[in-house]
């Protein structure tokens, strides 16, 4: 058989077995009858695993004496109906599913009531058959049914173990611990206190939330489900969908997550600040003032707010700044391997093109190692020092021009948005193209026209295009649809001030439906409405630092300004078919900046 029988058996138990797989499984079993014993053995374990986890859920259902009591009283009152706890299980399952998606996370209920194991592991059917035996339609028993299956040989299930493991220390960087100290791989238990005097530590909770602690920081892992108590210091949390409801409590506040990345900082007075990088949290004040009900606020990505003892919750959220992004270390990778952290951040936004100019192939895209659109150089391409590795070195010499994506046409797809992103280091104020999107033109025979350009202007603001003269030494973002329209058409956005030279600059141009935005170094420097659409079916090419050699041949004009060759270095270039939000751009800038060498 071609498929691994282990894989087939798992597919069978998890409901993923298709007709071909079923046929393969039957054939494998019948080849050798002893294989039925393997299936039998695996099924026993599969059943046991399901029951262990079911039992844990039941512990949650019977979280008070009252619930079980109610079931038993109900059984007495309706003697002809079997006791059925499946309704309670189903209700519990629905409530948990709802809690995961909506309501603030409740601190999990502790159970002081102990359910005899024979009830739980005997399973639903045990209770059912007990009911069948003891209520066959005749007189109800005076007392609730008890099936005495040598119950004295089974120890009652222990109460919820307050020393259970709730997280693991998964990484650290230059960490200096107070007492006790920890090593990577250590299990962390409920109730445990962590004092990190300096450096970074990453802990991962049982549900998969990754928390990066920045020393100095004091934290306690609570007995409550997926809840940390941050007494002092700073942390950033990345919460996967399976852990929605993850909560951080502080001396003054409670932050509940709804599937997000966020940071919390607590100062010496207990004042709490929360910044949301992605998703949404609920920030609530913890008020001991009986006259003032506790208030809370929902914070979405790009916003922060705070709570302090005197004033409670700040009513108006504040937009995140670049400094907020820089303040919170969101992954240890950021510090240990900033190039990788930057790459992962870019890939998370699913770029269509991502050129890093670091390795042999010079490009990384979101298809794990497979380049979707390869860059192909025109002329010689030199390399220079880049942010994290190499960058492409371009000059206005005709022989060393640029890199063009010409393997195959790029299609933006069904979108009304795109983002162009690059880091560039200009050697002087000159007129140079950073990145451009143009109709696919592999033969280089037609004059280039552009759908979008990001370029730097010279001191004159451009000779042949007078309307650029009002913006000397500024960055320019052009969007023109259709690209073949004459050069007086299209919408232009300018940076408003001179770009620095001999310094790495992060430029991001966003076309977001009816709006254009330009960002320099993580700050919005220009924004305007633009009603030109986007021809989604147009095959495009993506280029950097490109010169218009076809036009040069046609017009006979050779000056630099017409060539618009970039003079300097370009690195970490990306094209997205979405509009990157401000907080993502700020995050990229924060991470990229760590690569700039003095």
């Amino acid at each position: 058989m071609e498929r691994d029988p282990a894989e087939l058996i798992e597919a069978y138990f998890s409901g993923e077995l298709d007709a071909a797989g079923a046929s393969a499984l039957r054939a494998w079993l019948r080849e050798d009858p002893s294989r039925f014993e393997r299936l039998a053995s695996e099924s026993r374990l599969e059943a046991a695993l399901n029951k262990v986890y079911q039992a844990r859920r039941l512990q949650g259902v019977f979280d008070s004496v009252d619930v079980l009591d109610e079931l038993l009283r109900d059984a007495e009152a309706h003697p002809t109906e079997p006791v059925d706890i499946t309704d309670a299980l189903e209700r519990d399952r629905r409530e948990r599913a709802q809690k995961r998606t909506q309501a603030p996370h409740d601190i999990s209920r502790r159970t002081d009531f102990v359910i005899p194991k024979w009830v739980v592991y005997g399973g639903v059917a045990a209770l059912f058959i007990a009911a069948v035996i003891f209520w066959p339609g005749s007189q109800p028993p005076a007392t609730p049914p008890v099936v005495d299956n040598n119950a004295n040989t089974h120890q009652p299930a222990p109460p919820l173990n307050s020393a259970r493991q709730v997280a693991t220390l998964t990484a650290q960087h230059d960490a200096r611990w107070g007492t006790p100290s920890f090593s990577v791989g250590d299990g962390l238990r409920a109730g445990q206190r962590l004092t990190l005097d300096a450096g970074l530590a990453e802990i991962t909770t049982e549900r998969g939330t990754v928390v990066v602690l920045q020393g100095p920081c004091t934290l306690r892992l609570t007995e409550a489900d997926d809840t940390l108590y941050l007494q002092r210091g700073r942390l950033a949390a990345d919460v996967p969908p399976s852990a929605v409801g993850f909560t951080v409590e502080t001396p003054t506040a409670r932050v509940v997550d709804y599937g997000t990345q966020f940071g919390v900082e607590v100062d010496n007075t207990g004042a709490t600040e929360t910044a949301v990088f992605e998703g949404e949290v609920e920030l609530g004040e913890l008020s001991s003032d009986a006259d003032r009900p506790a208030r809370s606020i929902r914070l979405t990505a790009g916003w922060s707010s705070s709570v302090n003892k005197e004033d409670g919750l700040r009513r108006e959220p504040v937009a995140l700044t670049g400094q907020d992004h820089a303040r919170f270390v969101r992954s240890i990778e950021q510090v240990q391997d900033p190039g990788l952290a930057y790459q992962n951040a870019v890939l998370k936004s699913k770029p269509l093109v991502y050129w890093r100019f670091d390795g042999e192939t010079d490009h990384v895209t979101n298809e794990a190692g497979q380049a979707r659109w390869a860059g192909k150089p025109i002329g010689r391409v030199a390399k220079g020092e880049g942010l994290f590795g190499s960058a492409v070195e371009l000059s206005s010499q005709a022989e060393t021009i640029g890199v063009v994506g010409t393997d195959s046409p790029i299609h933006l797809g069904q979108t009304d948005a795109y983002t162009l992103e690059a880091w560039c280091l200009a050697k002087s104020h000159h007129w140079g193209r950073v990145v451009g999107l143009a109709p696919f033109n592999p033969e280089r025979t037609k004059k280039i026209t552009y759908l979008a350009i990001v370029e730097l202007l010279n001191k004159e603001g451009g000779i042949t295009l007078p309307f650029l003269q009002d913006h000397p030494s500024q960055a320019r973002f052009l969007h023109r649809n259709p690209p073949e329209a004459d050069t007086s058409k299209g919408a232009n956005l300018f940076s408003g001030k001179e770009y620095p030279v001999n310094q790495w600059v992060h430029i991001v141009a966003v076309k977001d439906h009816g709006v254009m935005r330009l960002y320099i170094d993580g700050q919005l420097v220009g924004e305007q409405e633009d009603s030109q659409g986007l021809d989604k079916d147009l095959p495009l090419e993506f280029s950097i630092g490109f010169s218009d050699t076809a036009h040069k041949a046609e017009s006979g004009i050779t000056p630099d300004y017409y060539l618009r060759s970039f003079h300097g270095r370009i690195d970490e270039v990306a094209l997205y078919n979405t509009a990157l939000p401000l907080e993502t751009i700020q995050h990229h800038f924060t991470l990229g900046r760590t690569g700039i060498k003095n």
Partner: protein
Amino acid sequence: MNPDNRSQLTTHWMQAQSALQAYILSSVGNFADSEDILQQVALDVSASFERYDPGRPFIPWAMQIAKRRIADFYRKNKNAACLFEETDLELLAQAHARLSKNEGTSGEVADLLESCLDRLPEKSRRLVDLRYRDGLKPAEIAHTTGRSGGAIRVALNKIRNALGRCIRSGTERGHARGA
């Protein structure tokens, strides 16, 4: 049913239940379906208990009753995961009956499984939690972890086998101690 019979049935049932459920599960693939069928089998066994010959082993007798309910299930669910024929079901029943002789009680197995789960490495434990606590299918887990569905299924199977070895060694130690 007289009280003696009731008591015997209860004892037999408690001893046979996990073998029966595993047999049903191996025949239909889905745990929730196996629970439903087990409830029906419980009723059938209770109704037929007067016809049971105490001189013969209980589990194979109950498995014959279960086979009828499995056949009903197949009839109603023509698209069920893997439909076995009569001979397959018989071979499965025999395999389960053999296995049930050497296993501990369901409570002992559950205790051992709990402690074996605690000893799993963290990543394996997380995978098991995603599958059994959060109810995610391997394809869904694959989506969140960036691995393929096939790789997740194979990993889960390896973890289950490791748990099985752990339980068996715990059972053997228990028998050796004469527990």
